[in-house]
């Protein structure tokens, strides 16, 4: 840390909040609020004279409130940079600190919060995690029985720099405990509080047990556990070492702790699962290995940075396996436990990875993106004509579109990822997606439905999931109907209602609308935009009186090749079960309605190109079918 602080290119801002983030990758504008610490940063040398003379003592949260600190304080002695802060809520304005500071003259009670805007190229979020307060779990009596402590309190009591100078004493009477119980999974793996496994507590509990056993060889230590999880290099060996040292492991989650009111000794009731018997042992002290939980302010951080959260409140990575450091917003990276609970080695690795991802941005003059971005036909956008719309901005998962009444919608190219949601949502067809234009997709629809359309199943597949699923069905040789014809788009959000109307207008037998499962969407919320549209379409077709099953919506992942084949075969059965004359009659009846609904698409600029594309496609297909000619 000290090295980092001395580095000419590293500027550490402590006691500072990030309030707003604007711009995009490489060009962020960040608003920082440097909170008033009433100490001049440039002058303070960290000597601590102010704290020595300060008459006010308040609980010290760094010591888990087991010791006091002064109103003039540093949060911990290893703080970098070592700057004192005046806790203005506790300060009585006696100004003794000003006197003690003397010639340095570092204390300034007139200081105000400083708000600045800074240019930032990349952002790494490393906000860490918090601890669960076990007092709501009344069965363990934390907060009621003095000798039930949390793991963090143990950490301070056991620390040479802590309030007891490393002498482990129990809070009720200050003697060294002889019998200690460590209870794992307090609040974690618990549907009443936090359902997840907190990842490192097993190892952490064993570490504390081994440490204490080395310091106090006479101490009897029991660890109560549901399962011991030691998934790391050397971890299982460490667990075995703890067993060999004589630490007692009891499989069984305690249901109750009772206290002897006289001695303040504790009785832990649990089942010994290996014996199948209820056991009750007496201890001097109990340590609760409490759950690790997200920071309380994750919501405001994620809204400031425009990054999403996984269930539970961890920041969402771009892809859990392939891009675990990146967020869906380019230029913002995640390090450590804020993304998901990690132990120290994993946190250090992810920190290094995030720094290296960020330096890629800082070292390049240009930033490459996929060329499939959205473009606005400015003359068609009704926002430019002074009307309220903004549907495109609402559909965009990346906040890449800015809409201001009186001006055409504006796409920030660097933020656009090319899902095409805005293109399909725009009711005036005023946006197009490069390489996935309406004309190009229309040409595919028309070509694929050129002959005997009533026999065909037209499948719209999203690039990331259902296209992969169809691919897997092919490579795995799952048999499915040969009448299936697929069209690839980037996301189910791009599957414009007009395409579906057009397909049915042309007389398609059935249409499949397929994409990722909601949690798998490559474009954060693109699937939800697509799914909402599919719901609307389903209702419309139902009202029109279309045979159920001719329009089908399925979410198929890239690993579900078998599902893709099954869905297509089921759709083929639906078509087969309708007598041919009846099907043709239904298509004819519905055709005018479909045409009416799809009419706006025919006005789209460059839609005429579809005819040229269609001719070219037809030529290619013919050449494929008749290789001799």
């Amino acid at each position, binding site marked *: 840390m000290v090295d980092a602080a001395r580095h000419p290119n590293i500027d550490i801002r402590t006691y500072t909040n990030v309030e707003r983030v604007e711009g995009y990758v490489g060009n962020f504008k960040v608003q920082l609020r440097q909170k008033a610490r009433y100490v001049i940063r440039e002058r303070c040398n960290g000597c601590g004279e102010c704290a020595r003379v300060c008459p006010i003592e308040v609980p010290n949260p760094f010591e888990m409130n087991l010791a006091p600190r002064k109103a003039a304080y540093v949060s911990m002695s290893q703080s970098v940079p070592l700057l004192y802060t005046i806790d203005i809520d506790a300060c009585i304005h006696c100004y003794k600190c000003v006197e003690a500071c003397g010639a340095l003259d570092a204390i300034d009670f007139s200081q105000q919060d400083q708000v600045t805007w800074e240019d930032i190229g990349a952002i790494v979020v490393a906000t860490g995690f918090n601890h669960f307060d076990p007092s709501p779990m009344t069965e363990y009596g934390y907060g009621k029985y003095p000798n039930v402590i949390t793991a963090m309190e143990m950490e301070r009591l056991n620390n040479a720099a802590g309030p007891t100078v490393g002498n482990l004493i129990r809070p009720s009477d200050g003697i060294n405990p002889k019998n200690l119980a460590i209870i794992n999974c307090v609040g974690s793996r618990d*549907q009443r509080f936090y359902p997840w496994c907190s990842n490192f507590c097993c190892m952490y509990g064993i570490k504390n047990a081994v440490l204490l056993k080395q310091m106090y060889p006479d101490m009897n230590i029991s660890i109560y556990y549901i399962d011991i999880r030691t998934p790391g290099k050397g971890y299982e060996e460490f667990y075995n070492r703890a067993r060999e040292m004589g630490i007692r492991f009891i499989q069984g989650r*305690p*249901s109750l702790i009772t206290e002897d*009111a006289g001695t303040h000794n504790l*009785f832990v009731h649990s*089942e010994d*699962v290996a014996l*199948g018997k*209820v056991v009750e042992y007496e201890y001097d002290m109990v340590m609760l290995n409490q759950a690790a939980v997200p920071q309380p302010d994750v919501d405001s951080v994620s809204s400031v940075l425009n990054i999403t959260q996984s269930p539970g409140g961890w920041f969402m990575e771009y892809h859990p396996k392939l891009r675990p450091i990146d967020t869906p917003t380019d230029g913002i990276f995640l390090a450590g436990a804020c993304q998901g609970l990690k132990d120290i080695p994993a946190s250090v690795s992810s920190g290094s990875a995030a720094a290296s991802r960020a330096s890629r941005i800082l070292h390049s003059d240009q930033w490459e993106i996929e060329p499939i971005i959205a473009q606005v036909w400015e003359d068609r956008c009704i926002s430019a004509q002074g009307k309220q719309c903004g549907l495109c901005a609402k559909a965009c998962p990346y906040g890449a579109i800015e809409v201001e009444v009186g001006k055409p919608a504006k796409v920030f190219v660097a933020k656009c990822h090319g899902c095409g949601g805005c293109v399909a949502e725009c009711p005036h067809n005023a946006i197009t997606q490069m390489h996935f234009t309406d004309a190009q997709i229309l040409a595919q629809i028309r070509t694929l439905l050129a002959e005997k359309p009533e026999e065909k199943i037209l499948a719209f597949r999203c690039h990331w999931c259902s296209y992969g699923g169809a691919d897997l069905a092919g490579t795995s040789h799952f048999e499915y109907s040969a009448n299936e014809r697929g069209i690839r788009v980037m996301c189910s959000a791009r599957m414009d209602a007009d395409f579906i109307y057009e397909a049915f207008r042309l007389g398609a037998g059935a249409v499949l609308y397929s994409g990722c499962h909601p949690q798998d969407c490559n474009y954060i919320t693109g699937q939800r935009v697509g799914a909402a549209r599919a719901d609307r379409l389903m209702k419309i077709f139902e009202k029109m009186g279309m045979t159920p099953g001719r329009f089908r919506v399925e979410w198929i992942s890239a690993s579900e090749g078998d599902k893709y084949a099954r869905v297509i075969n089921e759709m083929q059965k639906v078509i087969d079960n309708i007598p041919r004359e009846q099907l043709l009659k239904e298509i004819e009846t519905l055709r005018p309605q479909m045409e009416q609904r799809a009419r706006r698409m025919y006005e789209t600029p460059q839609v005429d190109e579809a005819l040229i594309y269609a001719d070219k496609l037809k030529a290619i297909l013919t050449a494929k079918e008749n290789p001799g000619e």
Partner: protein
Amino acid sequence: MNEHKLDTTSSFADQVRAIPGGEHLDLCYSCGTCVSKCLIQQKVEPEYNPRRLLRMVMMDKREEAFKSPTTWLCSACDLCYPACPQQIHISGVIGAVKQLAVEAGYTSPLETVKVDETLCSGCAICVMSCPYGAPHLIEKEVNGVMDRFSEVDVNKCMGCGICVAACPMGAISRPGVANVDILPQVRVEKIKGVPSLVVFICDWCLREDDDVALLESYPPNVRVIHIPCSGRIDPQLALFALSSGIDGVLVCGCALGECHFKRGNYVSACKLSILDTMLEQMDVADRRVRFVRIGTQERGQIRREIDAMLELLGSFRVVN
């Protein structure tokens, strides 16, 4: 023998899951919280183990589950339900197994209440008072007369004795704690020394062994009578004790929400609070009959309560 073969189509586990209460069976990860929260293993049956019963169901061990004491001894007090980290409604699962066991012809091995048909008037107060819906009215001919009588479903009765206290005709009895068993013990000539105190203590409100042992250590002026549930206490028992010259009566029940028989502690608390008012009207307003709730987490509370009662009764003696 298909002991090791798992039938996943319509297994025993599926049948249990299909009964309301049995749904969340598969979430159990065998942490043992339910076993140690429950007092049955410690107090009644060492083989009692809800976690293992859930496992038997999951592994399709039908006969073993039906024969297990866990199936029959669970009184659905639901102490384990709020403690379960997976929020499995364990008594619901056990109830589902019990239902299947009864359908398969197994019967409860528990000691249940008996109705004396010569005394029963068919008033149905027992039907209303039972937390398990065990008694119901039937019509049958006794001594040549068609009449309504109460009949108890032995597979539902848990033997708490709430109906015994409720029956106005004294027609219901439970072996061991019938009126004929208790009344002779609350006579003053049986209790040596002053102040004389009768302590009715519910079997389920003391968790700690040293608290249970404490009850034996009092001198003979304190008579401790164990009852299955504080709901068994009929106010008449207390009045009988007072009228026979005993100084005080202490009824100990479980804390709110901890009753082993769902609501026995509410029933007795209500009855004894009415008795309190009655005694006040009779100018016996010094709280000689007292109901106290003993929490299972409160080690040593029973000693404090009895000592406080003895002190109170001792002070009356001095004044009188």
